[in-house]
């Protein structure tokens, strides 16, 4: 079966996000009232799998995220 997957990988709470800080500042400079800007990593793909949850969870642990510094979440939807 085919699935449409989106993974979001975020830095753990408490770890600072230098890139997010710079972009946040840039937006504030343009006059927007932006706070706590973060730049999670996002991956979108099609997956052929019989056990998509298990495989996506594995992918995150094995490659897409670094468990020492990241948390992750994902959405999995069947491809029509």
């Amino acid at each position: 079966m085919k699935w449409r997957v989106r993974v979001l990988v975020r830095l753990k709470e408490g770890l600072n996000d230098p890139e997010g800080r710079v972009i946040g500042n840039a937006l504030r400079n343009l006059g927007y009232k932006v706070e706590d800007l973060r730049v999670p990593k996002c991956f979108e793909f099609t997956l052929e799998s019989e056990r998509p949850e298990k495989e996506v969870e594995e992918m995150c642990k094995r490659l897409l995220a670094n468990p020492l510094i990241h948390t992750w979440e994902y959405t999995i939807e069947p491809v029509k």
Partner: protein
Amino acid sequence: MPRFAVIVFPGTNCDFETVEAIRKAGGKAERVWYKGSIKDYDGVVLPGGFSYADYLRAGAIAARQRIMEEVREFAEEGKPVLGICNGFQVLTESGILPGALRPNKIPRFICRWVYLKVVDTNTAFTRLYEPGEVIKMPIAHAEGNYYIDDPSKVRIVFQYSDEKGNITEDTNPNGSVLNIAGISNEKGNVLGMMPHPERASDRFLGSEDGLRVFRSMVEWVKR
């Protein structure tokens, strides 16, 4: 003569000068494409560069290549394993060394000369330095900000310092915990460092301080 493999991943770019530095240090070194094997060598170096263009996270994709299983065995057997810059990132990503290298505190690539304090001279790579000696080398990285949840868990080898060996926030170029520039495993046979010793191995290039990393490594194998 001790033989070293310098592993080349797609995007590695400090392989030639690393081979040259090992040669100057009295060893023999060969570039080994990552699809090959390192079984016949006495030691291995993971050089700097941008393996897989640093996509995803620096070192992440290289760390999952088959050849890293051989590197892991090397490390466990007590053979010398040296990771420089991107090589250090590959070593942490593969879990051979603890911690993670995150984007610099100012999220930009930065290439500059820094001073390092040698705080551990009992590793395979630092035996020829004096304890507490201050040396000069260039850094060149965008993700060199060393992070570990519990710094007491690591063996610190190099710290960013000033000319006199003072370790302060000002001498920290990338935001690393405790100004860490290089760490080793418990046994001292695996070293990961962000600065480039191979770029400080020639009198015309600004410093020869880095050459002793390779000399130590060569002598350690001979011992």
